[in-house]
């Protein structure tokens, strides 16, 4: 678990996360990630072979809820959505109907 994170790995993860790190920044991130992951390593001390992962706490108290799980789903009915103009006003570049981006495919 506690293999040192290399610069190449930092760059690979940055690529996955769509981040373009400056060279100096990548070195800082490598140092910080290694410090944090070194600390995180103590989790290895715990035997979790019999423990189910828990992604959401809701499962801990859903049994005590006054309704069944399904009743908290909202009714499937028409309701007004946001105004297109309000939403498009927030876009960096738009023709009013579509979001505009730089070229996707270079020719």
């Amino acid at each position, binding site marked *: 678990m506690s293999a040192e994170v290399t610069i190449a790995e930092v760059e690979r993860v940055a690529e996955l996360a769509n*981040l373009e790190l400056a060279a100096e920044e990548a070195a800082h991130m490598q140092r910080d990630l290694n410090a944090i992951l070194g*600390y995180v390593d103590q989790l290895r001390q715990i035997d979790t072979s019999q423990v189910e992962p828990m992604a959401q706490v809701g499962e801990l108290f859903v049994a005590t809820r006054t309704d069944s799980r399904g009743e908290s789903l909202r009714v499937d009915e028409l309701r007004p959505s946001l105004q297109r103009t309000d939403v498009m006003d927030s*876009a960096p570049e738009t023709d009013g109907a579509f979001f505009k981006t730089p070229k996707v495919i270079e020719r």
Partner: protein
Amino acid sequence: MRETMSAQESVGPLRQKPQSIRKLRASLAEGHQRATSLAEGYYARIERFNPQINAYLALTRELAMEQAAAIDAQAAAGNPLPPLAGVPVGIKDVLTLRGVPATAGSRILENYRPPYDATAVTRLRDAGAVLLGKLNCDEFAMGSSNENSAYGPVRNPVALDRVPGGSSGGSAAAVAADLAVATLGTDTGGSIRQPASFCGVVGVLPTYGRVSRYGLIAFASSLDRVGPFAASVQDAAEVLHVLAGHDSLDATSATQPVDDYVAATAQDVKGMKIGIPEEYFGEGLDPEVRAAVEAGIDALRAQGCEIRSIRLRHTQYAIPVYYLVATAEASANLARFDGVRFGYRSSSATNLSSMYKLSREEGFGAEVKRRILLGTYALSAGYYDAYYRKAQQVRRILAEEFRDAFAEVDAIVAPTAPTAAFRIGEKSADPLAMYLADIYTVTASLAGICGLSVPCGATAAGLPVGLQVLGPHFGESAIFRVAAAVERTTQGE
């Protein structure tokens, strides 16, 4: 009982206690006070002191004066006033208010104007509160000192060279300096309780699902919660009562009925069983903080609580679990900031791929990038089982440990943070040291239980100390009851 300096004796130059919501409501109803002049007074105070504190990022004066005028009209007509009528409030800038910039403390959202209100904001509006403006915070609520804001750090009104805590630093500082009667914050790993402790105010972490997250700019969805800051336990209870309840716009919103929190603050604590976890009083706890918290525990004992020592044996693993779970969720949530639909777009991009990368590189600050990288790493092929899955397994152990503890005790009392407010710059170069500022708060976040921080005294230098009260899922009434008892003693009421 041990002698400690009371929170009120440590008043700093900018510290001022707001009038209580109950008194404010009565004086508006009786015509002794007008909501419009009250709001004007708050704006005058903000104009005077905000440049030093940097709590507010945007003011919504026009909206506030409209809301205040509507309350005055209702009062003049002799109509019954809604529960938060005329109460001047501020909103952490990770919550949306339609048409008003919501930056989340980030450059990437500098010009973003959300097209809808967060449910928590809607509920405040419907309850008659007057919305003064948006409050500074750590970028995307990631931080424990409010030094990660793209709009500059917030200063602690008690001591201007110190941090207010984070990430809801602006929300805590605004109440501490009476730049609002109450504020909204959010807490993912301690971001309400820790700044409440540092600024000497009350901050509440409601049970996961108790307050809707709709309109909250997401950091870690399984941990994020919205909650109030106020100057007293009763005021915090009044505000939470308005915020709490089911919302069909948040699929994790709970349907449990909402208790009468205000009534709980008036109940005595005689016979309540209070657990004191040994693990929260170990190495790293500042002796002055310990003394103040122990004085609070003595006060509870004197009021008839049964104080029991308990063990929460896996507590030391909470920080590692938290920084894996929270960053993994953040890396997914923050993928939406890509320069297409909203927010900042780099002007140097030449194609779609470079637009994504450069917009994110230029728009995000260092801590946000660090957490995105850590989270992406923990979720990536080859590391998922060792990090993310492992963290989720230990998260269950931590949650079950609390469940077992609450079978024995009604509430748990501990320090909120290991130290009082630290100096600006003191920890900003060392991410791990900063993460350890959350050591007593992250476990409750992971377990989804409720908690709060209430002032219980101060250090010799006059810095406030917060006492943390933790309760079981939907046990808000119990923690308000305990906190009110601590407050009665430490504030001599």
